[in-house]
């Protein structure tokens, strides 16, 4: 096997093993209901994490996505509450706004040579601040169209459902994989992660690519915000706090290097599933206090990273001796 597939394989192996372990203890975890829930409940996180994967592959980071999700939700709620605009038009409008927002951050990062961490941190403050200014109340979205969309799902045998948003996440992952591995833009993203200076000398349009990457992340954060608003039928300025950290964790568990240049969009999908599995397991167990929940999540994160390191290390060594 090629060394570059090692982290991804390690992640998949770990996921399958832990799923089997969980299922041995709570057979219900194998039900289609839980599997359907895993997709639906993590849809917004998964979509945002696809954007985050591109950002991290290019060697950057985007801390603004949680706030952008909240902003999108509040914006939709306010617009649908106060105007007669059709939700689809509102979706288009908000996606335009968040894409532009991402593009502007990308432009600042490139042209002003500022670190992504800081630019997107300011973006995080700004987007949440905008959400507050729009409304501090949580606003329910009662538009009938939302009901229609929520009624769209594919029923699995056993009571589970693949919902519209769950399906949307799968689609976004599929497109993400295609963009990463089958377009020139995708290769350019990896190229930036390999070294901006070298990429520039090799003729990669660094500025354009950087702007596009953050615009894509903004677009997907906006899409994730739409999904979140469908998921909760509401807009709330305090929603999705810390989602960026969850997304980063999913990306890293999925085998992508935070330093950029190496990793897979598909890995992020497994990362999302692993995180969802941890949460499901903790709820099924139901005996942990608040603090033990946090400690356990931290520990599991640590164990996953360690196992991944271990598997990669061992197979590297075997490869050398082979």
């Amino acid at each position: 096997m090629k060394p570059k597939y090692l982290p991804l394989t390690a992640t998949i192996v770990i996921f399958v093993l832990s799923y089997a372990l969980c299922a041995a203890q709570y057979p219900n975890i194998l039900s289609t209901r839980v599997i359907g829930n895993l997709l639906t409940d993590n849809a917004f996180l998964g979509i945002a994490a696809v954007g985050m994967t591109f950002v991290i592959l290019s060697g950057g980071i985007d801390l603004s996505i949680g706030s952008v999700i909240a902003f999108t939700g509040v914006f939709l709620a306010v617009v649908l509450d106060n105007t007669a605009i059709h939700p689809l038009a509102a979706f288009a409008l908000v996606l335009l706004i968040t894409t532009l927002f991402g593009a502007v951050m990308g432009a600042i990062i490139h042209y002003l040579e500022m670190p992504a961490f800081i630019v997107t941190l300011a973006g995080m403050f700004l987007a949440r601040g905008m959400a507050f200014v729009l409304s501090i109340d949580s606003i329910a979205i009662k538009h009938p169209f939302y009901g229609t969309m929520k009624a769209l799902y594919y029923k699995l045998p056993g009571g589970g459902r693949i919902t519209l948003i769950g399906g949307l996440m799968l689609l976004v992952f599929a497109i993400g994989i295609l963009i990463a591995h089958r377009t020139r833009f995708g290769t350019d993203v990896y190229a930036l992660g390999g070294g901006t200076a070298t990429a520039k000398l090799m003729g990669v349009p660094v500025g354009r690519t950087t702007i596009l990457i953050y615009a894509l992340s903004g677009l997907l954060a906006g899409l994730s915000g739409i999904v979140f608003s469908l998921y909760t039928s509401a807009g709330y300025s305090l929603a999705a706090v810390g989602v960026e950290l969850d997304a980063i964790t999913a990306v890293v568990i999925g085998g992508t290097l935070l330093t950029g240049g190496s990793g897979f969009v598909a890995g992020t999908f497994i990362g999302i599933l692993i995180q969802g599995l941890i949460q499901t397991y903790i709820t099924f167990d139901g005996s942990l206090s608040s603090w033990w929940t946090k400690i356990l999540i931290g520990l599991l994160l640590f164990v996953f990273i360690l196992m991944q390191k271990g598997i990669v290390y061992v197979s590297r060594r075997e490869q050398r001796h082979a």
Partner: protein
Amino acid sequence: MTAILKSYALRLLPQIIALAAILLMVSFVFPGFFRLEIQNGRLYGSLIDILNRGAPVVLLAIGMTVVIATKGIDLSVGAVMAICGAVAASSITSGHSLAMTLVITLGTGILCGLWNGVLVAILDIQPIIATLVLMVAGRGIAQLVTEGAILTFNDPGLIFLGSGSFAWLPLPVIIWLVFGILVALIVRKTALGMLIEAIGINRQASTLSGVLTPVLLIAAYMLSGLCAAIAGIIAAADIKGADANNAGLWLELDAILAVVIGGTSLLGGRFSIAASVLGAIIIQSINTGILLSGFPPEFNLIIKAAIIVFILVLQSPPVRNAFTFVALLRASRKPTERQAR
């Protein structure tokens, strides 16, 4: 000597200008801003509040600067603050002496740093992820100690650390001043600073040159843990109780921001403790300024974001280069003018 001082002043100039501009701005929206008086044997006024309230972020920023200089980052400092506050409170309420409590608490902070350092330097885990583990689990550990409640205490010695005063200054200010100067001296008067910068810029080359990279890396995280411990003690002492849920919440972001405003690159390398301290004070000035201004709280984040973006844009390489270029032009023009005469 004067040349070194001059270059030092030049390094801090952007931060000093930004701070001055913000203070001036605040004094427009709140005229009594610069007033200082002596009350209860200590200085009293908004400026002192800034120095006092800024203490936790200043302390975190000191440790964070060194960690960032090694090309790392420490996301766990907020959680470590909570752990250490909880440990201090539970130690003092369970009857340990103040000295013992301090030893235990600082030890806890250093231990947390050791954990982070080992993950980064020995297990070679990326710093963001390595410290994310403790960031997530740490608050749980702190709550484990306090069982989710605010653990209050009445020990006058410990409380003095948070709200006492000495030489007209609140004790937290004295603590960060002394600690900051100490760290800066240790780092700059020994070769530590240069070695840390070398690691941050090129770890492989440093190791090949015989620099003890793992030890120095671990030490950097331990220093950060120690800083978080001191900050945690101050935060707990300030409210006479350990609030495991909220102590240090999101302060890691403020600390990182302070370091960046101080002009240290997140990519590691060249660092300045004094500049980071100034960065932290700038952030606190913004916070205090917002509180004094009387705007509705919905606007807090937007105002903060706007000011920070502005400062950072001024500091960004292209803008700075443009300024230096103008300055250079002027400088180069002067001698020729003189020659012409």
